[in-house]
């Protein structure tokens, strides 16, 4: 056997073994990874909709039709509908993302179709500047904006202390770019999701 063939055979065997190891690990950890993702998502939804006992994930089709998704792994536009122990509809939680100062900010917010307001906001993932932009996830004054944020009007971010209307977000001083990114994120997401939720409200309330 020539030296070239010998080297190719060795590399082939090593590659095959490495491939088997990777596939084995992937298969072995798949269930656990899915479970972790589902737990994180459900915990986030529960934090935004207190009292939630049951949730249904609705996928939004290109034709604005709703389909019930089997698990959190399903991709595409979607939202979570929350229900209490008696089956009463509490509201929906929507995922949204927008380019921030350092990278994309991913967040979830709760929306009440009854009052047409945003009732809660939580950052899921971000890489904003520590001590400045990353305050969007913890600053009590900033998070106060999302207790009853009017979603019937395009949401806008105003400079710190200049908030006058219920659809305005009072920015964090020193973190204007990140605050504005949150405003843009909510404005775009509400414009896309709220009409679909309102159109299908009866179905969502019945959990169908």
């Amino acid at each position, binding site marked *: 056997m020539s030296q070239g063939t010998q080297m190719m055979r060795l590399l082939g065997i090593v590659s095959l073994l490495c491939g088997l190891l990777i596939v084995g690990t992937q298969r072995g950890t798949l269930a656990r*990874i899915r479970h972790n993702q589902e737990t*994180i998502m459900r915990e986030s939804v529960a934090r935004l909709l207190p009292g939630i006992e049951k949730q249904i994930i609705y996928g939004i089709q290109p034709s604005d039709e709703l389909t019930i998704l089997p698990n959190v792994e399903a991709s595409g536009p979607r939202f979570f509908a929350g229900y209490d122990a008696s089956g009463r509809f509490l509201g929906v939680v929507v995922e949204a993302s927008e380019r921030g100062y350092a990278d994309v900010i991913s967040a979830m917010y709760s929306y009440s179709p009854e009052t047409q307001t945003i009732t809660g906001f939580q950052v899921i993932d971000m890489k904003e500047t520590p001590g400045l932009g990353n305050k969007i996830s913890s600053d009590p004054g900033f998070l106060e904006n999302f207790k009853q944020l009017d979603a019937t009007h395009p949401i806008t971010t105003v400079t710190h202390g200049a908030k006058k209307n219920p659809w305005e977000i009072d920015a964090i001083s020193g973190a204007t770019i990140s605050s504005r990114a949150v405003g843009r994120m909510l404005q775009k997401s509400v414009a896309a999701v709220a009409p679909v939720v309102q159109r299908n409200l009866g179905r969502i309330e019945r959990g169908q």
Partner: protein
Amino acid sequence: MNHEPTVPSCHPGGAAVSNPSPTETMVAFTTGLWKQNPVFVMVLGMCPTLAITNSVRNAIAMGLATTFVMASANAFISMVRKMVPKQVRIATYILMIATSVTIVDYLVKAISIPVYKALGPFIPLIVSNCLTLERAESYAGKNPIGKSILDGLGMGFGFTFALTCLGTVREVLGAGTFLGFPLFGKNFEPWVLFLLPPGGFISLAMWLLTFTFWREWSEKRKAARTAAEAAEEIPVEVIL
């Protein structure tokens, strides 16, 4: 300052040790912890060292991930070292390191998604950490499996120790917390600079200075003690 390794077979081209004594085996483990610490002595793997150490939790997670990669990659490489032709050894080593990194990637994701998100692209980048290839080429490719695993563990724990040192300084000064627990009162104003990239360089410089001063001081003390012992042993007749 003596930076030479204490294990002769660590040198590229060094002879393989077929039957290592227990002392040699221990040296294979402890060398990476202190005498050849990957960060404080060899100054390798600077990318994760500077990028990940803005919290102690991330530093420990990154260190342990690297430790697993180094121990498993060293084991695989040592197992096949006699079969791999010289011409394709680097390709084979990279393949095995990449496999170990991919396994770690899945394991971290299965253990904790928040940690996985915090470490971001730096887990896949372990494959390009020069420390892993350096140990594969200079140690695992020339030594038996047991010693190679110990070398990987020693280097990995040394790396974890260094990352934790940096992470401690940066988290305590930059956020006023340790492992997420607040250390100071509400009046503490965090020194945010330490969480930003310049803080990484400043912390690393402080630790390198401290480590170098300590090494020089201990070596001078050792030299002085040896000289004193040698002076005591000189026969009186010679002095006369």
